[in-house]
């Protein structure tokens, strides 16, 4: 009898898993080109005296850490 493989692991099976992957992918896309080289590339813009490029990406990176911690808490 042919072996029945387990369902694919490339797509999350739970709602929390799909939320976690979706949030991570969207946020990660925001810190990649073209956003970095167009929207965030503002050498004259400042936030609290720091370069906006540094601050905006720091906030996105922090949000990504938040997604990972949320995923951990949900047991995904």
């Amino acid at each position, binding site marked *: 009898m042919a*072996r029945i493989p*387990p369902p694919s*692991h490339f797509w999350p099976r739970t709602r929390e898993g799909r939320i976690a992957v979706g949030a991570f992918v969207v946020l990660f896309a925001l810190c990649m*080109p073209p956003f970095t080289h167009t929207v965030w590339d503002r*050498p004259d813009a400042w936030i609290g005296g720091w370069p906006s490029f540094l601050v905006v*990406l720091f906030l996105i990176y922090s949000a990504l*850490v938040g997604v*990972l911690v949320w995923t951990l808490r949900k047991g995904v």
Partner: protein
Amino acid sequence: MEAWVVATSLIFLYLLATIVLGVVANKRMTVDMEDFLLYGRKAGFIVLYLTVVATFHSAFAFLGSGGFFYTHGIGFWAAGTWTLLVGAITYVLGPRIWALGKAFGYITPADMLADFYESEAVRVVVAIVSVVFTILYIQVQAQGLGYIINVASGDRISFELGTLILLVVAAAYLMAGGLRAVYWTDVIQGVWMYVAVWVGAMYLAYELFGGPLELWRQVQAQRPDLLGLPGPRGFFTPGMWIGMTITLSFGIIFQPHMMIRYYTAVDARTLKILGATTPIYLMTLYIPAALVGLGGAVAMPGLDIPDQIFPELLFAHAPPVLTGVILAGATAAAMSTLDSILHANMTVLTRDVYQRYIAPDRDQAHYVLIGRLLVGALLVVGYVLSVRTFDFLVVLVTLSGAGALQLMPAIVSCLFPGPRTLTRAGVLAGLFAGLVTLYVTLVVVAHPLGMHGGIWSLIVNTVVAIAVSAGTPGPSDATLERIHGEVERQVYGP
């Protein structure tokens, strides 16, 4: 007391502390391969956290990143993307690798891939890729170490002698205590390097500019070209941004010294916590590096070797004790990576070559002895490679990472059950095609069309692996059931 005396003394005190830890680790060691090579598979969260971050961040993070900000500007804040990806990869892949290692006794990455693809050829090729590309990394760290001690001593200890001293110390505590000694020293090194970078950068920001805000104002006034993309030399193109993100995350995680760490965890949840939290340490270490590099471009322009900006600023503007403490932190950054790579290469050569093909039926003590002898041999190879050339640190790191990146299709297919898997012929053909492409796109025509060579090689590797796998036999049903079944149980329960 002169600055160089204080700096050099502190570094040697630090080295002494690592040797003492190695001796203590030796007393706790039991003579078997799992204990010597894998810390007995019982590393808890704190030890594992600090060894992973200390190993990931090397001489490059301490010296090269400041140099990169100095030369190419704020675009190096891309570093955050690969540190975040390292966390996510650890979260997703770490528990799978751990579960397979525990269930089937794997010690090296080649153990896992050879078992899954049922191929000794896969074992040999993976072992070769593992060793060849991480030896480059030994060169990078050893050069960083030699450079640090050369600078700290005010050129009184030559680069060559400094490299030799630090290689010998790392090899000594590794031989004495195995991976336990590496982990324990990494705990100190991980804390020390983080504190050192932050304290040094903030001290310099206040000493030179009166604080970070004025530092940024000066950068804007004097070097506005450093605040935009792609940077003054046009380095940070979209293709390079993406390429460095992939290469310095997957490419480093798939190096044996990082993958072996997953086998050593006490349980899978520890690895998940690790994945969720390591980016905090890894990413925030680049903030002080930005202050040093960009502030340094204003305060000390025109350096011939940009990697020198941090120690040069310290020697010029910081008190000797602080300079010594921080340079000892830089030593810690380089040594924590170097000892891990020496350990990983020793593990691969002992397990995948010696035990497998030369002397398969010897007792555990024999393999531990061989491991120690191999560390001595690697020390010699690392030293010779190190004193031959001196180049920009990040380029070598990127080359190293891009090599291990070629293992990605094989590892993903092994760890992710799906409707189709790669085959041994597909994996081998993909690796060969990927490595050839890597050579062409890094050496012959560097980064064609502005896209990092690592990405070109990964694309070619994946396409070839899938194409060849479509027409060749894959792993047997029994192997798929055993290995993918274990992954299924680990991720989704029995």
